[in-house]
């Protein structure tokens, strides 16, 4: 009898639900505002319960992943096509890269099915009112809202950049939670959306770091960190290095924010030294040289393009070099004359897509790729199934051009 009593008390305790919904949100969850709203609220409630949120709050900007046909497949394409018929996004919504650049897709060996499915996905997002930015660096090509603004970024490097450098607040969203936030304009108030104090500090001990070092530091931080980490011992970093660190961290874990400094005295301290760096390098570097080079994961911004043009003055690549950048940056670069310079140096310029999960590099044609991107390296290795040769940009220019 005591057993039964105890079981029933436990049952009562475990029924406590944390997330409180407004009457309107309850009504949407019941399906009174249509099937798609119901689905969107189901996603928000599941995310909210999983992250122990007590309420939903408004967000001002959603950035969606789940665009590349390579990643979402037929189910994703059909799903988006079906919901786009009756759904419009409620807040500013931008989009991750897709699989190719329509301007030059005919130069690559993509089958017609891929192209038509990708265009259907593009069309579905546009129908829903999403800005077709096809970029993983929204923080570099759109105006940043005022300090503390709540956003919902599904692209991991963008979420980390937004939290760490842009004074915005977002969790590391999933493709579906960001989509639900775009449709409802809301997100669960939990985790990094509130105040956060990391319990871990990483001490940067590697001397003379370049962007590759910062990428590896980020990758290491993502593995050891939980939702946020302190980082101490960083000097001045340029944009390329900041982006590399965000890209690296987003790849390896669930952590979505750097705080710069030593943190509280009771924080656990871990050193990122030559040995830890070598471990990351050994995990991702699997070749001594590459058949082609890729630059851009995250995509390159105008500042990096300008710097690249400077480095390539009077030189040209000895092998293929793919350069990934957002369309708006490509247009700006064209006006300034940078794209001419890059093409003269032998670069293939690709907008709307990225190294990461690209269908344009196939293991049947390519054994190994040289890149300075830790994020790119991880996906080239694990998703494309090719070997990777890691080098900093300076080293790439020195070794691979004449």
């Amino acid at each position, binding site marked *: 009898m005591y057993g039964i009593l105890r079981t029933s008390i436990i*049952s009562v305790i475990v029924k406590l639900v944390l997330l409180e919904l407004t009457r309107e949100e309850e009504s949407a969850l019941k399906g009174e505002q249509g099937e798609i709203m119901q689905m969107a609220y189901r996603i928000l409630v*599941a995310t909210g319960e999983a992250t122990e949120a007590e309420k939903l709050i408004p967000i001002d900007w959603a950035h969606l992943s789940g665009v590349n046909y390579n990643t979402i497949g037929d*189910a994703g394409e059909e799903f988006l096509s079906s919901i786009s018929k009756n759904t419009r996004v409620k807040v500013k919504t931008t989009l991750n890269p897709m699989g190719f650049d329509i301007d030059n897709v005919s130069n690559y060996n993509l089958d017609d099915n891929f192209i038509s499915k990708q265009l259907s996905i593009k069309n579905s997002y546009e129908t829903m009112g999403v800005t077709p930015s096809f970029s993983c660096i929204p923080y570099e090509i759109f105006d940043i809202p005022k300090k503390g603004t709540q956003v919902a970024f599904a692209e991991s490097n963008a979420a980390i950049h937004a939290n760490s450098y842009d004074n915005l607040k977002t969790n590391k969203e*999933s493709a579906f939670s960001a989509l639900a936030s775009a449709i409802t304009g809301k997100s669960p108030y939990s985790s990094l959306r509130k105040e956060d104090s990391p319990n871990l500090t990483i001490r940067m001990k590697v001397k003379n770091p370049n962007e590759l070092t910062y990428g590896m530091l980020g990758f290491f931080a993502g593995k050891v960190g939980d939702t946020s980490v302190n980082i101490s011992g960083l000097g001045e970093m340029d944009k390329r290095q900041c982006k590399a660190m965000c890209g690296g961290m987003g790849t390896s874990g669930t952590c979505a924010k750097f705080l710069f400094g030593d943190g509280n005295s009771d924080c656990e301290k871990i050193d990122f030294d030559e040995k830890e760096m070598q471990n990351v390098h050994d995990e991702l570097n699997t070749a001594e040289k590459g058949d082609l080079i890729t630059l851009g994961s995250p995509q390159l911004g105008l500042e990096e393009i300008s710097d690249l043009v400077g480095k390539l003055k009077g030189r040209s690549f000895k092998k293929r070099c793919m350069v990934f950048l957002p369309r708006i940056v490509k247009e700006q670069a064209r006006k300034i004359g940078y794209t001419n310079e890059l093409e003269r140096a032998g670069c293939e310029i690709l907008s709307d897509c990225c190294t990461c999960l690209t269908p344009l590099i196939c293991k049947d044609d390519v054994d190994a790729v040289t890149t300075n991107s830790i994020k790119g390296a991880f996906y080239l290795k694990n998703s494309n199934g090719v070997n990777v040769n890691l080098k900093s940009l300076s080293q790439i220019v020195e070794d691979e051009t004449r």
Partner: protein
Amino acid sequence: MKILVQGKTEGIILKSQNPINFLGTVDKKTGIISDKNHELFDKSIKNSILVFPSGVGSSVGAYTIYSIKSNNTAPLAMICEKADLTVATGCALANIPLVIIDNEKFSSLKTGQKILLDTKSHNPIMLL
């Protein structure tokens, strides 16, 4: 216990001690586990009450959960020990009931047991 996606269903437990990476481990059409290294290799998760520690791997795995639901090869419900956003949002989108339970309860569930899962009940997981 946490209810992540509500619902009511009755079925037979299929339990895995291994986590499941839905992207790449579960066949999108048949709902059969295709990873040779997985303890549920060659088993179909269709119409089961799938009990496993948690989802792992790419967030795109949520799209796989949606696919098996569209192809009528999805589990009737899922029960996990740890909440992860891939399984949570995948189940939410596909409307598959999802419950998170503690380690003790997780250990007590066994493949082949018939249960009634009702997230609105005082005792959401009832052995039949």
